[in-house]
């Protein structure tokens, strides 16, 4: 991880974002093979969770990545966003 450069960090971010969308599409479309069973809804929910958490994952990686790059300010900003997202989990209808 010592050799992490900003370019490399942004490449990782790109890969994470791309993978999130691809995984969502593969799992959600695959779920339609089990249309009339509970497994369909289970897979669909899994796909949705992966997609919804994709931007969260990129913030997590940026928080760690900026810290490793010595950019503490943006690592802190990313961490603040993560905390805000976590607090959002406690909001109910």
């Amino acid at each position, binding site marked *: 991880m010592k050799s992490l450069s900003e370019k490399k960090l*942004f490449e990782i971010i790109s890969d994470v974002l791309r993978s999130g969308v691809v995984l969502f599409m593969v799992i959600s479309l695959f779920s339609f093979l089990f249309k009339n069973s509970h497994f369909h809804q289970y897979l669909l929910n899994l796909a949705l969770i992966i997609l919804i958490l994709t931007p969260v994952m990129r913030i997590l990686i940026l928080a760690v990545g900026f810290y490793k790059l010595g950019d503490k300010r943006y690592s802190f900003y*990313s961490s603040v966003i993560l905390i805000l*997202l976590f607090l959002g989990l406690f*909001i109910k209808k």
Partner: protein
Amino acid sequence: MVELTILNIVLIIVFGIFIGILGSSMGVGGGAFIVPFFVLVFSIPIKYAIAVSLVSIIATSSAVASVNVERGLTNVRLGIFLEMSMAIGSIVSTFVMMKTNSSIIQLLFSFMLLPVALTMFLKAKKTKKTEHKEISLNLNKDNKNLSTFFDPSLGRNVVYAPKKLKTAFFFSFFGGVMSGLFGLGGGIVQVPVMNILCGVPIKAATATSNFMIGLSASASAIILFKNGYILGDIATFLIVGVVIGSIIGMKFLYKAKGSTIQLFFSFLLMFLSLKMIWSVFK
């Protein structure tokens, strides 16, 4: 809620392609079309339509940002800074949206489409002027915020330094509100704030906005998913179309000098707004 016949699936995918092209090439417009589409065509309650819109915004943002971050078009640091206030706006407004009567949300949404349409109309008129001005902005080499990206349509590097960041931080909160309350993503606020206020070139502003709206949509979608508002079946087929459309749209964004198509869409949005208002009082 909606019967997924073959015809409906095809209709949703084709509509998704249209939204993907629109969202990725202009940075705004995705949610503004998705919500009226599901409310008016499929009679889905607006809160569920907003939830579907947000999920598709995450997909568009992620697909487009994955390319723009690699190309250096996205200003990641600026995006993260503004995302802090945007996330607060998203979370607070999602809570308000869940607590508010659907008819009120639909009415507010319809009125919100009018300034969105107007912004799109004005942006279409100003695009050319801005592109010529932006190259000479803030070229003080001592500026710590100096950023650069290669613009193939100009055949050169564009150097800029975002300014008035504190004011932009304040306005980004309202970008988040657009996301949580109306499922609009917030690009309609972020792109003008970054372009006009911060002096970020329009292409970098659009790319950075696309990067940011994924997170604000995610902040809202987490809450809506937990509370059972997301229709997974519909979202899946919409996103298939959106991702295909985004890939087409990204090529358009990277090469295009400007767009007059926005004029057409601004009039279409005005029409949708009136139709939504009409459906509330019908």
